[in-house]
């Protein structure tokens, strides 16, 4: 099971993926699915659901702002994840 963490810009997303990778949490940069964003094109990191809490703590530790978090709902859509 995977989750996606939205970022406010491509650069933030790039930094996020690198920070996570550097912390031992593999993550991939993607263009955020349209239904997860409200303001048009956005970028996100995809990672394992199991690593989510650790990932958020890691991003917070380097003061890297991130947006909402989503997981696939099993029917092709996404559901927001709240920690």
């Amino acid at each position, binding site marked *: 099971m995977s989750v996606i963490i939205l970022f*406010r*810009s*491509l*650069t*933030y997303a*790039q*930094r996020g993926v690198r920070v996570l990778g550097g912390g031992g949490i593999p993550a991939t*940069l*993607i*263009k955020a699915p349209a239904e997860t964003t*409200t*303001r*048009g*094109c*956005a*970028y996100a990191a995809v990672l394992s659901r199991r690593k989510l809490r650790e990932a958020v703590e890691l991003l917070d530790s380097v003061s890297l702002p991130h947006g909402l978090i989503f997981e696939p709902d099993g029917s092709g859509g996404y559901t927001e994840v709240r920690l």
Partner: protein
Amino acid sequence: MIYLDSAATTLLKPPSVAKAVEKAIRTCASPGRGVHPPAMRAADCAYACREEATRLFGLDAPERVTFTMNATHGLNIAVRSLVQPGMRVVISGYEHNAVVRPLVNVGARLDVCVGERFNPDSFLSELKEKIPGAGAVVCTHVSNVFGFRLPVEEVGALCRENGVPLVIDAAQSAGHVPVDFSALGAEFVAVPGHKGLMGPQGTGLLLCRNSAQPLLYGGTGNMSDSTAMPEDLPERLEAGTQNVCGIAGLREGIRFVRETGVSRIAGREAELTQRLHRGLKLIPDLNVISVPEKHRTGVISVIPLSMSGEDLAAALGEAGVAVRAGLHCAPLAHKTAGTVSTGTVRYSVCAFNTPEEMEKAVRITEKILKNRYKT
């Protein structure tokens, strides 16, 4: 050709710069415009360049590195972000038109700090008087005409004490002498890509402490549903497709500078400049505008007494020595130094020059002036 016009553009660059440009033009599309491999390669390339700059200039996050066309572009953004019409802005007496013109255009009241010529202590004393109540300070790190290095660290400290935002023009210092963004405490540092960083022309960086006002508005590849520019750096200042090929080359230039070490580059350039200065000083009919050695970088200005500067520069060019004559887009600096009526002939080195080239440039200069004197 002995290339001694590196203060304008470094022509002698690491081979990796041209290779990276060539590779990018074949393989990279545009960052933030899709997630297909060419777009992602472009995004990776841009991010890697930001990371290199973050390390070189001591920033805490790569998003504070924004891409510009050149230092002038960055200075325009900085001025537009900080300066309101009628605001008193303190500038050094060595500023380039890249600083003066945007400030005049925005309607700033210029308060020029001069001090005694090429005397940092005198400059700082005068600055201390002028800073209280100023809206901003804009200061070049190194004079593009005389190579005089201004005490920007102390200027930064004075600005912090007085709560006045500081903009540094690092056009002649980045890659030549250490530039530490954190230590300077500046709001903005404007950096060209094509000079000391040895990148391609048409590249530059604006290092930002906080956000800034965009100079251009347009697509950024994110938050597309909004009619406003994104709030976050760097995209806020990067409307439209970026110069990815240039950025690829710039990344290699910065990497070269970082791996070589700025202090090592500074030492090499100081050695070359000293040799050149010593030789030029011995030539009759040549007025060498000497900056005290400890405040000097790789730029020397001279005034020929028996011919015009333009004629000397042209003759040097014909003889295979590339230098520049005139006011060097910095009339204020010439007024400060008392050379505005003649302008100067500027010799500027880079670390790829050789001691032999310095000796030869001196000999050719001497020969041209001697021949001219005889006729």
